[in-house]
């Protein structure tokens, strides 16, 4: 297991060193957004890369977290932590409720169902303007833990960096655990895993819920971080961005998720709306990377240099 620890040490070192290298808050902001995406993508990769399923609507769960925090703290003056928990619980419950029927589907039908889920969520968020501020969005108060307020990109950086490190560690643990092995077996051969006793339906639901949980929590934190939420955090383009980060970084690769998130966040304006040339460039990059690096960046490099994941 020293390979695992090596990767974590490198990541921790990078995270510790970064604040010394970043020149101003603009760069901290980008680093923060990279971390946010990386954490969501880690969760999504468990579903897509390791369990071999698909979700084209994951931004919906992100949006649920974001709006739960926004609405509960603004309209109902809840403490942010409570709102975050409610958002995560809500997203998880929704995922748990909808997963059993959805995961009876396969392939493109499953993809379609997850896509539909994401779109319905985003439409609801956009339409319930009374609560959500509609298409224009709404502002969100700052995040505070029991009276201590998190203010400024630097403070957020430490929170996000910590969560990222923990998430990478936890995901690696999970993959090597019995649960994780069953998940990968499910991807490799559903029939074989059933025969050794894996309840594949339950595993699919569980991992879907877990990845929704990750997304929702990050949605909540992002809402407080940015100070504002708009419905496009829950919309199809955002879902596609997330899936792209998974695929480009490398499915079934924990560090791939991080790299994928970093790369695709660095592309300008990759988070909200695409404008003209950015759109074309983004699209071209998607096509080229999938054509030439079908396994994703990290696994392809790992295969070339033989070894590290």
């Amino acid at each position: 297991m020293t390979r695992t620890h090596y990767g974590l040490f490198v990541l921790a070192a990078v995270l510790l060193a970064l604040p010394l290298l970043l020149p101003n808050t603009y760069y901290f902001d980008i680093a923060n957004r990279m971390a946010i995406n990386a954490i969501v993508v880690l969760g999504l990769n468990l579903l897509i890369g390791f369990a071999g399923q698909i979700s084209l609507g994951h931004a919906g769960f992100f949006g649920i977290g974001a709006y739960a925090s926004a609405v509960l703290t603004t309209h109902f003056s809840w403490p942010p932590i409570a709102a975050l928990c409610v958002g995560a619980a809500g997203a998880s419950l929704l995922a748990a409720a909808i997963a059993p029927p959805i995961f009876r589907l396969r392939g493109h039908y499953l993809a379609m169902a997850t896509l539909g889920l994401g779109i319905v969520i985003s439409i609801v968020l956009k339409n319930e303007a009374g609560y959500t501020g509609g298409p224009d969005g709404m502002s969100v108060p700052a995040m505070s833990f029991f009276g201590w307020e998190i203010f400024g990109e630097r403070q957020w950086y430490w929170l996000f960096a910590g969560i990222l490190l923990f998430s990478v560690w936890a995901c690696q643990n999970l993959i090597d655990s019995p649960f994780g092995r069953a998940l990968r077996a499910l991807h490799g051969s559903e029939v074989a895993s059933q025969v050794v006793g894996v309840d594949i339906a339950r595993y699919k639901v569980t991992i879907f819920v877990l990845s929704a949980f990750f997304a929702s929590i990050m949605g909540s934190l992002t809402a407080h971080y940015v100070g504002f939420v708009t419905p496009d955090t829950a919309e199809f383009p955002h879902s596609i961005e997330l899936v792209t980060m998974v695929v480009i970084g490398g499915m079934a690769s924990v560090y791939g998720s991080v790299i994928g998130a970093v790369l695709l966040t660095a592309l300008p304006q990759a988070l909200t709306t695409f404008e003209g040339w950015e759109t074309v460039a983004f699209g071209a990059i998607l096509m080229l990377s999938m054509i030439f690096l079908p396994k994703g960046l990290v696994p392809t490099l790992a295969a070339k240099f033989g070894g590290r994941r």
Partner: protein
Amino acid sequence: MLSQFLQFMFSGVTVGATYALAALGFTLIYNASNVINFAQGEFIMLGGMLTVFFLKIGLPMPVALVLAVAIPAAVGVLVEKLAIEPAKGAEVVGLIIITIGASLVLRGVVQIWLGKGAAAFPAFSGDAPIAVGGAALAPQSLWVLGTTAVIVVALWLFFNRTLAGKAILATSFDPLAAQLVGINTQWVLLVSFALSAAIGAIGGILLTPITMTSYDVGIMLGLKGFVAAVVGGLGNGLGAVVGGLMVGIIEAMSAGYISSAYKDAAPFLLIFVVLFFLPRGLFGAKATERV
């Protein structure tokens, strides 16, 4: 009461016909290559946008129309050559991403070239609505329905009565077997993409006088076409048409009777209902996995 119902029916069937054409496009390409072409919506968009452009630069309508169908067809071939072919054998997720990438490129190019504004051109035979049972039927709707019907029949004849069509069908059932009997599967793929794009473009052209067009209409139209294809059963032509009409009608009914804000949600909720009872869509094949 009845007139209101009819009104909704008319708009539902009209937009449903466009979804049907989009769904047919998805079906064609899916059958030929097992790929879901997320760029299908952009072909629809291209049809409308190109017509607007050509009319604006002074070309006569018939020329504009022909170009607005031929160019997307050519683009379809380009997409196949540049995006699908090089990625042979990639995983499903990878192929989905590639076609999404292609759709972004197309949308981005149109956005840069033609701007973000919405535009339209006049209906083909005027705007005077025809009164039917108290409801107003726009003449353009008849164009949409009529052309769609003609296309559906033409496709049916093509696939069932011509050798070329049967070759394409054969490829969709078993590409390797088709190759072994001498069918040029590469050609089949190109034709499928070109046909699919052309059909989508026609749908886009027909709909533009009614709903206007802009650089981003492709997203929702494409997605709903995809919903229609899945509801009907992926790969089934009849299913695509039925699915498209269903989606259009349900959307119009939701907009009319429930809430127009949620009309976009209706097709996606339909997906859940249909797939819950019929995991492979209305006409999808039941498959047993060989162990």
